[in-house]
Every structure is written in C-alpha cells, then in structure tokens.
C-alpha cells in the first residue's frame, strides 16, 4: 500500500470531489454563462493556486537573502516553475471560457493583460536563472529579482484592474462571482477545489524539489 501523508490523501479526495461534483453537481442556470459556469471550479482555482505559489516563491526568496541556504533557493525556483504551469493552464481555461461567453479568445482587458504579464515575469525570472553560471550567485541575484518583480506583479494584478472598467467579473462595476452568482451549492465545490489544487501544486513542487536534491547528490558522488 502506498504510504502518503494525510494532506496528499486530502488532495486526492478533494480533486476527485471537484471533478465529480464540478461536472455533475447543480449549478444556477444563468444566461450567456450557461454550463460554462462550471469552469469557475477550474479556471479561478488555477489563479488562486498560482498566486499562492508565487507568494511561496516570494517568501522563500526573502528567506534566502536573510539565510543563504540552497534549500530556500530550490523551493523558490520550484514553486515558481509550478506556479508558471498553473498560470499557463489558467490562461488556457480562461481563453476557452472567454471564447464561449465574450466571443473571443482574447480581449484587451486589464485583468487578462495582468495574467499575461505574470507569465512574462516568470519567463524573465527563468531566463535570468539560466544566464548565471555560478550557483550561489545565481541564487542570490535571482532572489533579488524575484522579490522586486513578484511584488510589482502582485500590485499589477491586484490593484490596477480595480482602477478600470473590465469585462472580467470582480472589477469596475462588474460584480464578482461572490456577490450573487456564487450560490451555496457552488461554494461547496469552489472552496474545496481551491484547497485541492493548491495542495496538488505543493505536491508537484515537493516532488520536483526531491528530484533536484537527488540530482545534486548524484553530481557530487
């Protein structure tokens, strides 16, 4: 029998709950949105997970600068990698949703541009990491960039869209799902889904960290 810690079991249960309940459970019948409202469980949760992973990356970069351990840098790097994966999936699910409700895969919108910019920052972070040979130097310089860029990115994603009108729910006079669309039935799936996908992200991250540590160990032998 596979030995997994409790939160991994919780993750498996929550993901399956999200999949089953998300596709089969009752949802409010709303015009235009129709059944695409189910995408809420997958698209929005991706961004929640990405923001949490970006915060992890930010925190571990700060930790690295105050205490330069290789572990801190590895966590920062891997959480950024998994965060980028979630960001890409978030953009793709969002594009499918946008095509079906707004009629186009991409619209010029503050929130969408913020999402694209978040992926740009991640890409820049990885390019910087590749440009530095020396390991400790790479860790230090990329930590500095991560703190600088991720902080500004959070401002860009969280503050600026609230200043303008937006098609996207939750901005500029356009109410978020929480106000009326998200009824009690949907909440029962949505919050577990957020937790489930975040745990999945942490799980992937943990595996990647272990792989990197083993590779490192192998190189030293």
């Amino acid at each position, binding site marked *: 029998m596979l030995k997994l810690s409790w939160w991994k079991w919780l993750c498996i249960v929550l993901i399956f709950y999200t999949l089953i309940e998300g596709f089969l459970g009752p949802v409010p019948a709303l015009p235009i949105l129709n059944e695409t409202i189910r995408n809420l469980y997958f698209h929005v949760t991706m961004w929640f997970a990405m923001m949490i992973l970006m915060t992890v990356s930010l925190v571990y970069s700060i930790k690295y600068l105050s205490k330069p351990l290789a572990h801190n840098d590895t966590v920062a790097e891997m959480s950024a990698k998994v965060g980028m994966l979630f960001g890409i999936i978030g953009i793709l699910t969002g594009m499918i949703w946008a095509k079906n409700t707004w009629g186009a895969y991409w619209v010029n919108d503050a929130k969408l541009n913020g999402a694209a910019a978040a992926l740009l920052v991640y890409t820049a972070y990885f390019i*910087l990491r590749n*440009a*530095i040979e020396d390991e400790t130097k790479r860790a230090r310089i990329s930590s500095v960039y991560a703190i600088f*860029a991720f902080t*500004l990115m959070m401002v*860009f994603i969280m503050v*600026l869209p609230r200043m303008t009108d937006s098609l996207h729910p939750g901005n500029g006079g356009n109410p978020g799902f929480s106000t009326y669309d998200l009824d009690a039935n949907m909440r029962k799936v949505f919050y577990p889904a957020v937790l489930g996908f975040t745990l999945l992200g942490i799980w992937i991250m943990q595996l990647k960290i272990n792989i990197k540590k083993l590779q490192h160990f192998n190189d030293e032998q």
Partner: protein
Amino acid sequence: MQNTSKIFSLIIKEYRYDWRSRSALSGILMYVFATVFICYLSFKNVIDIPTWNSLFWIIILFVAINAIAKSFMAESQALQLFYYSFLSPYHIIVSKIIYHAVLMFVLATLGAFIFTFFLGNPVQSYLQFSLALLLGSVSFSSCLTMISAIASRATNNPALLAVLGFPVLLPVLTVTIRFSKNAIDGLAWSVNQPYFILLLCLNALILALAYLLFPYLWRE
C-alpha cells in the same frame, strides 16, 4: 550631512563621466531624434491623441532602456573595489537613481519638444503633462537602474536588461500612459488625481525595494 555630500559627489561623477565620453550621450540624443523622425516619416501626421500619447511613451521607454543599460556595465572591477572600501551601497543606488531620473527628465522633455516639432502637440494641460514626464522619468529610472544592476551581475547579455525590465516596467508604464493621456485631454485634476496618487505609491514602492535589495546585489 556626510551622506548627502557623498551622494552629491557621486552624482557629479556620473555626470562628468557621461559628459567626458560624449559619444554615449550624443548617441542617446541621436536615438531620440531618429526614432521620432522615423515615426514622422511613417505616420506623416498623428491626429489621434491616444496614438500620439502611446507612441511618445514607447519612444521614451526605449530611450530609457538605452540610456540606463550601460550604467553598471561600464564600471570596472577596480572601480567597484574602490567603491566597496569607501562607500555604502545606499550611496551608489541613491546617486544612480537620482542621476538617471534627472537625465531621463531632460531626455523626455527634449523628446517632447522634438515630438511637438514633427508630429504636432495636442497637449492641453501642460502642468499635468510635465508632472507625467517627471513621474515617468523617476519611475523608469528607479526600475531600470535596479534591473541594470541585476543584469550586470549576469553574463554580459545586452538583451537581458530589456527582457528583465519590460515585465517590471508594465505597471508604471500603463499608469503613466493613462495619467499622461488625461493630461493631454485636459481633464480636471479630480479625474487625474487617483492616477497621480497611484503613481506616487508605485514610485515609493519601487524606491523602497531598490533601497532594500541593492546591498545584496552589490557584495560580490
């Protein structure tokens, strides 16, 4: 008191350094002129105000990247060792940001004049537009000085500054463009005030981050 005099002498040094090697400075001026001239030749006449505004800020963005790119690359190992033994990192970053902000403000103002000469001038509120120029220069300078310090620590790849800089500059660039657009349209101050405050906050955030993080870049 001593800190101020140190920072001041570093700013003077930056200025002398640029002034002595005129090729760099005249290269930037040429860049401003050439890009505006190219826009003039390709657009003939820009009547649309949003286009005028965006075009202007995109040119200023590229000018800023070119002007600030070399700031850390040019300094030799020996000079850095000299700094290390006599100065604190705060002196370096503060003096560089101030110098680049002033340089960028001069270049942006000059750019605005050249732009006016070739492409006309739709600006209605000059006071707000100069404020946009000033705040834009300060935020470009603080962002790019910091990014240039990061890029100079990596292998010498000239494209790295642009790659690292663009995503970081996006927030200030979008707010500056909006602020400047309202200034050109001559909207009331009450409309533009939120953007002004947001821009100030963003600047304060960037400056605080640069001030806190630069010491970690500095020690080799």
